[in-house]
């Protein structure tokens, strides 16, 4: 396998996610696009982990340099879970106060 297969797939998913963040008006849809972006990064991290794993030798029972990829991806997943929890709470408060979750209507701080 070429390492670039995985990196190109992740890059394309990342760009689709960026398009969603820029274009969508609904707050929940923006969060979904952010999930696409974070997921693309995870594919990169795991692909680099596998690439590194075939170059290094791991002794079972000892910490191995090749586990860096999956470990970082796990941290990304944990941060994504925290982000989506707080993000949805914010969107619920927004809906309670404005009866709408349209991001374009959030112009209170516009000069």
């Amino acid at each position, binding site marked *: *396998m*070429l*390492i*670039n297969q*995985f990196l*190109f797939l992740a*890059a*394309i*998913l990342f*760009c*689709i*996610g*960026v*398009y*969603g963040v*820029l*274009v969508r*008006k*609904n707050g*929940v849809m923006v*969060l*979904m*696009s952010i*999930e*696409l972006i974070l997921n693309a990064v*995870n*594919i990169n991290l*795991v*692909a680099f*982990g*596998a*690439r590194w*794993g*075939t*170059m*290094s030798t*791991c002794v*079972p*029972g*000892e*910490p*191995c340099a*090749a*586990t*860096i990829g*999956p*470990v970082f*991806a796990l*941290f990304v*997943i*944990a*941060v994504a*879970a*925290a982000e989506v929890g*707080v993000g*949805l*709470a914010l969107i*619920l*408060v927004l809906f309670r106060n404005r009866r709408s*979750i349209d991001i374009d209507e959030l112009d209170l701080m516009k000069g």
Partner: protein
Amino acid sequence: MTADMLPVNIAFYAIAAIMIGAAIRVVTTKNVVHAALWLVCVLAGAAAQFILLASEFMGVTQVLVYIGAIVVLLLFGIMLTRAELGSSDDLDNNQKAVGAAVSFCLALVMGYVLWDAFRGESFSLVGHTTADLGQTTEQISDSIFSTYLLPFEAVSVLLLAALIGAIVLARRD
């Protein structure tokens, strides 16, 4: 490319095509609930790619956390904000052309950099066991609880803070 990698490559390209198609549907569909279901498709495809990369633990975590928890949370968000459950023409703003141009330019730049940096660099997982690759659950947990103990604790404090923050924000007072 050697012949023994052919099945893996076929599986990769089939899953990648499904993932890209589903991702495009996530950002273009006119139905909010359908977007969440297409997102499940992308996330399941990513789990399959993790398994192709011999990282079973990450594949299972992806299914449990993303599909099991995050998508359900997003669906709760859709229901609680009483979004229109049918098709709606009012989901996109009027900057579609600019957004498409920006993401296309981003794809060009990233594609060129990746092609330039990793051109022709290949690896083969055939003949390696999961333990050789350092991807067993035991090796990953050894790594988290020794080398990366401090970041792990920081992430747990972050999750606790996010939990308390979400409760404080969402409760009625």
